[in-house]
């Protein structure tokens, strides 16, 4: 290593990974239901996709965590997004390919992706 840029490259690559070890209560929380029902419906690839996407984009203050059964097993995999102000959005029957859109539209820009939410699913 002979330049600061090389050092910075390593730092940027590692930062997203080490940042996961910080605690912040003002964070946006992405909660993935990972009980037996969720796992059976395919929640694990969804969880991994969220986790990777957050780290790849180096999103600050976004925590991807698991939870148990949310109680709506028929709608699994369920993902709940809690913004810092406490507002909750519930996405249902989430697939890994929907993750990009939820991150870009909702978590970064703040526009809820209504077509995937539980309200839409119930209407349909």
């Amino acid at each position, binding site marked *: *290593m*002979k*330049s*600061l840029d090389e*050092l910075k490259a*390593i*730092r940027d*690559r*590692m*930062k997203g*990974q*080490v940042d*996961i*070890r910080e*605690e912040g*209560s003002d964070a946006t929380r992405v909660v*993935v*239901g*990972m*009980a*037996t029902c969720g*796992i059976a419906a395919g929640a*694990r690839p969804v*969880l*991994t996709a*969220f*986790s*990777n996407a957050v*780290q*790849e984009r180096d999103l600050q203050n976004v*925590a*991807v*965590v*698991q*939870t*148990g059964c949310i109680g709506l097993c028929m709608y699994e995999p369920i993902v709940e997004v809690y913004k810092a102000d406490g507002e909750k959005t519930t996405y249902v029957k989430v697939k890994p390919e929907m993750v990009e859109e939820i991150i870009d539209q909702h978590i970064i820009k703040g526009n809820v992706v209504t077509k995937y939410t539980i309200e839409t699913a119930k209407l349909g």
Partner: protein
Amino acid sequence: MYRSHVLVCGGTGCTSSGSAKIIETLQAEIDKNGLHDEVQVVKTGCFGLCALGPIMIVYPEGSFYSMVKEEDIPEIVSEHLLKGRIVSRLLYQETVTDDGIKALNDTSFYKKQLRIALRNCGVINPENIDEYIGTDGYAALGKVLTEMTPEQVIQEILDSGLRGRGGGGFPTGMKWKLARNIVPDADQKYVCCNADEGDPGAFMDRSVLEGDPHVVLEAMAIAGYAIGANQGYIYVRAEYPIAIQRLEIAINQAREYGLLGKNIFNSGFDFDIDLRLGAGAFVCGEETALMTSIEGNRGEPRPRPPFPAEKGLYGKPTILNNVETYANIPRIILNGAKWFSEMGTEKSKGTKVFALGGKINNTGLVEVPMGTTLREVVEEIGGGIPNGKKFKAAQTGGPSGGCIPAEHFDVPIDYDNLIAIGSMMGSGGLIVMDEDNCMVDIAKFFLEFTVDESCGKCTPCRVGTKRLYEMLDKITKGQGTLEDIDKMEELCYYIKANSLCGLGQTAPNPVLSTLKFFRDEYIAHVVDKKCPAGVCKDLLQFTIEKDKCIGCGMCAKQCPANAITRTDYIAPGKKLAAFEIDPAKCVKCGACIEKCKPGAIYKK
């Protein structure tokens, strides 16, 4: 990429309570559940709560599992890591509240702490240089080599107000300035790190080396640039195998990355570091003795001046700083002197790490801003004294320090305040004592240590500490006189004034400070021939209260000296005859007290 990181403490404390086995089992369970691509296991340095080890923390949730057992691992993996159900039963109970789990930083142990020197301990994997770089590691070295002159670096450290964390509290920037300027045409200079942590009860340097070894390497390179040295030595005691192993790994990784070696960051600056292992002599923590030992000679101090900044290692200008001092340097460079000098008290800036030990609930490592009171450290962070006992005194500064009695519980801790009340900061060992500790016995314990560790070069220390110890021994045996106390005091001042190095000059401190604050205990030993705390065996008498004795005979069975026999007396309401202790035969081991169900045996 990993969605979850499981951090397991690999410091000495948790390693001795079995964390290596925990890591192995954890990894196996994770593999078994097919989670190895999703969950990363990281072995870190010390979290500080050594009393609750082995410690494990799971991110992103930040769930803090304490006293983890091997058999709990499958449950943690299948419930928490796979299904996301935190196993609250196994959490550190202070983090569990009625409405869920509170953050670790909100618990009383961590709330008042401010971690600068320890900021990476328990957060990164010390054996992975990339993780250190990921937390801004080596950015400070990059900054000084590309943007700052050596004079600017020294000025920054001077402005920060950082003082040596090894005990004396000498301003670090001043030391560097002297070493840079005092011999203008020196052909060779050295940067040394004092990792010969020898105070009984102090283990912060070990924890920094184990948890964040790169911070010391980076800071030494910065120091080398500032004073104009290209070689560094870390003098670390051989009793710290984990620290040595991680330092070796760190040095090799830094060399591989070109962060040590020739032409660092293309700046033309060369710097390399080697380890020197110490055999564990306490005197080698003294700077001149340490350097003599690095040179390969018997570790003995020499008179100063000349100070090491002028004539140090191999006769060349040398700076020697303590591990914790170095751990502050990169942060000061990155955040600025102003940031650092805003913390702490007027003359003591920044934070200080304390190793809490003795009669305290949360044994472990804490870092607090200078000026925090002893009460906050002991009662809030330390969780108070076990079994509802009363705080009697805290010992700081190890064998060179003194006792702080309860009346000074609210004194803000900094270098000058501690000296004003007859103790010293030392390296930061803080041993808490309760009403069951005899202060004469404590003084004797520390003197026994200094007698053992005196190198023998100068007479005041070699002979003086021995005589002092003998007088203390006499007093604990009930053979002391009031004249002995006066003589002891006189001898203390003589040793302080005439010893060659810091070891002798401070060795009488434990005696002087206990005499100052607990003279009545000395008087009790000498005049009443009693030990008020019930520690000094020769002054104790074990007796059985006959009316309480149920005659079960458990005490007699336990007695190794056959000193307990049955009498003819049957207490009212009891069925069997009571026992009694023959004081002539009793060896005062206390085995009978432990076994006595009705609590009929007393020591007085």
